[in-house]
């Protein structure tokens, strides 16, 4: 049973790698061997921009040159900026909702929760128009802006976390004359490392994998993220015979960062995903 499960989960990964390491012309002749059909690293060389377009055609590619290393840099910029901004500002707001009594608190929090209910496509069109009117099309600010200041789920999640922290330590800090910012930075955040890690992992995966928004506002090569680059690569390959070797090599490159994050975070990542539903 576990073996069957492993086969279903892992086989597509292996097949992508096998194809990426195969000579493009051989893929058409040998469709079943488990090992690469005529081993080559050319597909990877092509997608990371090591060869020019004429050479790429000679190697059996479509000649469409897409530099996935540049796309990876763009993806990293977008994901890291979005995740750090979103986590810091959401946690800051969540602290106020969890710990400070002020007029209108409940109504304001309800507004944040209501935002959770709005499907992405509803705000997508007006947000696209806004970025266009601001002249931010094809810029990093345009791609990152809607995610930088907060995520409704993050505010909700952090508020729950902070509510479960014992207040005695803060009261002691207050008597020592600490202000809210100091308590937030020195007491609450350090005590919430697990929650912050959980949310950082989840939202990194989410931002890394986002497609429609960056596709709409960031199609130029200099800001294009990996998912968009893959989509473009796929649509530019001829319909009859897509460049499978190149596509799979690009897909492998796109997998690396989240898989790496997963390996480094290890058990924590599994726990993060596991407990995201319980809070």
């Amino acid at each position: 049973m576990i073996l069957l499960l492993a086969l279903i989960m892992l086989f597509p990964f292996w097949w992508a790698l096998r194809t990426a390491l195969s000579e493009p012309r051989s893929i058409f002749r040998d469709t079943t061997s488990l090992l690469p059909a005529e081993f080559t690293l050319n597909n990877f060389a092509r997608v990371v921009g090591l060869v020019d377009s004429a050479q790429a055609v000679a190697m059996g590619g479509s000649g469409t040159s897409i530099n996935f290393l540049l796309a990876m840099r763009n993806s990293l910029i977008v994901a890291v900026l979005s995740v750090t901004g979103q986590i810091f500002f959401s946690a800051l707001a969540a602290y106020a909702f969890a710990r400070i009594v002020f007029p209108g608190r409940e109504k304001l929090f309800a507004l944040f929760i209501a935002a959770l209910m709005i499907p992405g496509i509803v705000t997508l069109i007006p947000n696209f128009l806004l970025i266009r009117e601001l002249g931010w099309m094809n810029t990093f600010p345009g791609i990152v802006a809607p995610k930088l200041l907060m995520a409704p789920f993050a505010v909700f999640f952090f508020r729950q976390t902070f509510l479960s922290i014992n207040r005695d330590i803060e009261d002691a800090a207050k008597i020592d004359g600490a202000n809210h910012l100091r308590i937030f930075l020195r007491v609450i955040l350090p005590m919430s490392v697990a929650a912050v890690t959980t949310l950082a992992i989840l939202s990194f995966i989410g931002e890394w994998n986002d497609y429609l928004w960056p596709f709409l506002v960031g199609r130029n090569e200099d800001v294009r993220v990996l998912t968009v680059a893959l989509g473009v690569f796929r649509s530019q390959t001829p319909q009859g015979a897509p460049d499978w070797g190149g596509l799979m090599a690009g897909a492998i490159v796109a997998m690396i960062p989240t898989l790496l994050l997963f390996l480094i975070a290890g058990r924590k990542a599994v726990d993060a995903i596991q407990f995201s539903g319980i809070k």
Partner: protein
Amino acid sequence: MVVTAKPAPNVQRSSRLRAWKRSDTWAAWLFIAPSLLGLIIFYVVPFGRGLLISFSDWNLLTPAEPVGLANYSKLLADATFWRSLWITLSYVVINVTVQIGLSIGLAAFIARFTQSVWVRGLLILPYLLSNVVVALLWLWMLDPLLGVINEALMAIGIGRQAFLGSPQQAIATIAAINIWRHLGYSTLLIFAGMQVISKELYEAGAIDGAGEWHMFWKITLPLLRPVLVFVLVTGIIGSFQIFDTIAVTTQGGPANATRVIVWYIYEYAFVRFEMGYATTLAMALFLILLVVTAIQMRLLRAGESDL
């Protein structure tokens, strides 16, 4: 806070706390300000603006022209809209029922036979890939001519299938692809829910002579309800908005068999540039999701567990 009867040091302590609290309101607003700005600029205003645009005709080139409720009456009479809603619904039903069914089984299996974090890590791997990458992997494996799955089907005598190229199979195939990506995620959530059920209940059940199957139905499932509701509600809301996989694989085809609602909205907004009708469709989706969620919460009595 009642502290009058307490000894002197405490009175002093609490009055300092109270003085500290008076200056709090401005601090709270300062803390919330960045998020609130984000909420207003990218959620509240766009929602209102979307609603406004839906009462107009606007192609982005000429100024918007108010048309009142015309877009909404067009929507009610738009057979393609109803068809795309039907396609979406069939996708949601296949995706959610199969995925949750399999997840419950798998979660029960790993809870019973292995606590290994490796098995859970293995299950979650596909979830780490983007929809775009997952769609590409399966597009290749399901290729009608060169795909390894068709080779395997030939080998066992079933014969080639068109999968994404067939109007009859396309939606189910897309559901299968997304189930592969999300199965581990929902399994992990349900598994975590199972972990918090008290072991004593099962011990008591065993003493009363209940079999494992019986205990699964009488203890596990009812106590799992809050988690199941979460997985079900987020699963349905997410599935209604399926887009990425379709954008990479079928683009609404073949023969419009996978023209789901978000793809239809996308076509109106960014291919035909009819912003008025596109936002009307988006508002309709919002209303549908609101109603679906409300019904689910009511039916499933979300917050309550059976104990």
